[in-house]
């Protein structure tokens, strides 16, 4: 994939690319700015539909967050994981329990939810991480089913059975109570933004490169001395922890959680977002969230047939772009043509430390 091109051709082309990149970056910043200004634009237009659209955008953001976390496991490490709702559920229920029983504030439960979900992922993934492809897929489906059944049966008396838990508080950040649709819009998209930056950094770190290696060729990675099991587990734990935090936000946004929000079907939605958007590419994943969550809303006018149209649209989009709508670009590795010239990021490569 990442064959280095001829150094000369590369440098000419890369100059042109650099130029284009600047325009592109400006467009991106403008786009993000416009997006964040939406609540104000709506307010100034006096739009009555603002709460609906902002709620929809918050829901899209929440699923973008979930899909970004799944992307670490599925897109970056290439592990077929179709049970992400299980970790989402753990986060939501941990938050609800700490908040309802012990009166913790929502933001204080955020790290606990992350740790609990991560720990749970470690526990369940450890024995099965060596399974290949589709066998891992069915095991993760099994996990999400088991979790749902456990929630429904009120395991340890923690989950409230089929009724779920009700009356979760709203988050309070520096004394500001997050209640209105636009509050959640900013909270969720802020988290999406931070996650995107962190995962971007993760992707380009030693850890991210190791995951990429494992995805492309596990056996070769193993041969090169990459501890594949440890890296795969790490990917699982990180992804699950993030899903747990999304669970915290979900619990405090919905205020009531019940097992039907954490089904296999939800896992399928997250999986679809990642693959449809462009597995391994964060912008693609966010685009995927817009389409997968947004299209059923757009199709509301079709009433009973809206999911029929939606299913057909999924098939059509996959056929139209099998690699996802916005797949990652193959990474270009520049050849260090003149020996003394340094390129950013190269120091790290020479660094021998094994920590990730």
């Amino acid at each position, binding site marked *: 994939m990442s064959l280095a091109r001829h150094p000369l051709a590369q440098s000419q082309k890369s100059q042109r690319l650099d130029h284009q990149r600047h325009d592109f970056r400006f467009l991106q910043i403008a786009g993000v700015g416009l997006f964040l200004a939406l609540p104000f634009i709506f307010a100034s237009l006096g739009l009555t539909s603002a709460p609906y659209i902002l709620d929809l955008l918050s829901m899209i953001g929440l699923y973008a967050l979930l899909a970004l976390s799944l992307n670490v496991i599925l897109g970056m490490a290439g592990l*077929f994981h179709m049970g992400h709702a299980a970790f989402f559920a753990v986060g939501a229920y941990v938050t609800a329990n700490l908040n309802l029983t012990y009166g913790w504030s929502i933001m204080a439960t955020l790290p606990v939810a992350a740790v609990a979900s991560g720990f749970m992922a470690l526990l369940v993934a450890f*024995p*099965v991480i*060596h*399974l*290949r*492809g*589709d*066998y891992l*897929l*069915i*095991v993760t*489906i*099994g*996990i999400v*089913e*088991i979790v749902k*059944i*456990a929630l*429904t*049966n009120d395991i340890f008396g923690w989950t409230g059975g089929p009724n779920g838990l009700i009356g979760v508080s709203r988050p309070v950040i520096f004394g500001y109570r997050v209640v209105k649709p636009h509050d959640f819009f900013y909270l969720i998209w802020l988290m999406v933004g931070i996650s995107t930056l962190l995962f971007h950094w993760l992707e380009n770190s030693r850890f991210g490169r190791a995951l990429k290696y494992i995805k492309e*060729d596990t*056996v070769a990675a193993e041969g090169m001395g990459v501890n594949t099991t440890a890296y795969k587990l790490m990917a699982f734990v990180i992804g699950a922890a993030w899903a747990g935090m999304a669970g915290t936000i979900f619990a405090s946004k919905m205020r009531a959680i019940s097992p039907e929000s954490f089904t*296999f079907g939800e896992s*399928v939605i997250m*999986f*679809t977002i990642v*693959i*449809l958007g462009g*597995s391994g590419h964060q912008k693609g994943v966010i685009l995927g969230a817009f389409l997968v969550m947004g299209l059923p809303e757009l199709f509301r006018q079709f009433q*009973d*047939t809206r*999911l*029929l149209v*939606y*299913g*057909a*649209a*999924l*098939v059509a989009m*996959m*056929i139209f772009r*099998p*690699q*996802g709508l916005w797949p990652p670009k193959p990474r270009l590795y520049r050849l260090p043509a003149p020996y003394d010239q340094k390129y950013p990021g190269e120091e790290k490569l020479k660094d021998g430390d094994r920590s990730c």
Partner: protein
Amino acid sequence: MAHFVEQIIFGLTVGSVYALIALGYTMVYGVMKLINFAHGELFALGAFVGYIFLVTLNWGGLLGPALAIGCVAIIVCVATALAGHALERVAYRPLRHSDRLAAVVSALGASIFLQNVIMVVWGAQYRAFNASLLPTIVWRVAGQSVPLIRVFVFLTAVVTMAGLYLFINRTRFGLAIRAAAIDQGAAKLMGVDVRKVIAVVFLIGPALGGLAGLLVGIYYGQINFNMGQMYGLKAFTAAVIGGIGNIGGAMIGGLLLGLLETLGDAYISGAWKDALAFVALILILVFRPTGILPERVAEKL
């Protein structure tokens, strides 16, 4: 102990239906390495096609139960086979050379589509099959009640599976299917028409699924548009337990899953029985990472 024998009979009937559906998953997977998530919906479609003839057109009353069931079984198999073929043409063939996960998402989309087609055409409510199509005869064997209809379901499934097993292992075309499952490229070089193999696999698999749908309709007497979801997931689990890609494995996996469920229900808890089945799945895979009878395919590196 007497109780135990009864549970085994229940488990085998439930399991034989799973096995029939699992065969569709495993055949498609064996040849194409594709998890056909829409297979459960083809199963439901089979039940609804059966509904048209047995209930809406009342063939049971016109032809008598035995002849009606025989004719309708053939019609159902043909109809679901054609639907499966169309599905392959539209949703999977364009993705044959793409990333495997793209085909998975396409399959999921197709599943949503088909499920909602059934809902729009036949409505969302539960539909009832003629309750009196087959007489309620219950045999007493050594103090155990053995309902005739359970024996009928079990035997139909076993005979169908035996037929398929012979077809795969004793005929030339079966050989071609097995060859394509091991290595499509090499099979092509040996003169196997792989496209034809895939087409046939996509006829047989859905036909078996449709037949299972008809059996469920006749036996349990009620069908609804999202019945394929639960059965599809269970059957897929069964296929993996047996070793996905392996025909014999699907049969063993289906029966084993049926037994696990009923025994878990009988001796542990009804509310937890599905969880127990999945725990068993995970344990089996932990110790036998490719199922009980693994596919005989070298891992593609």
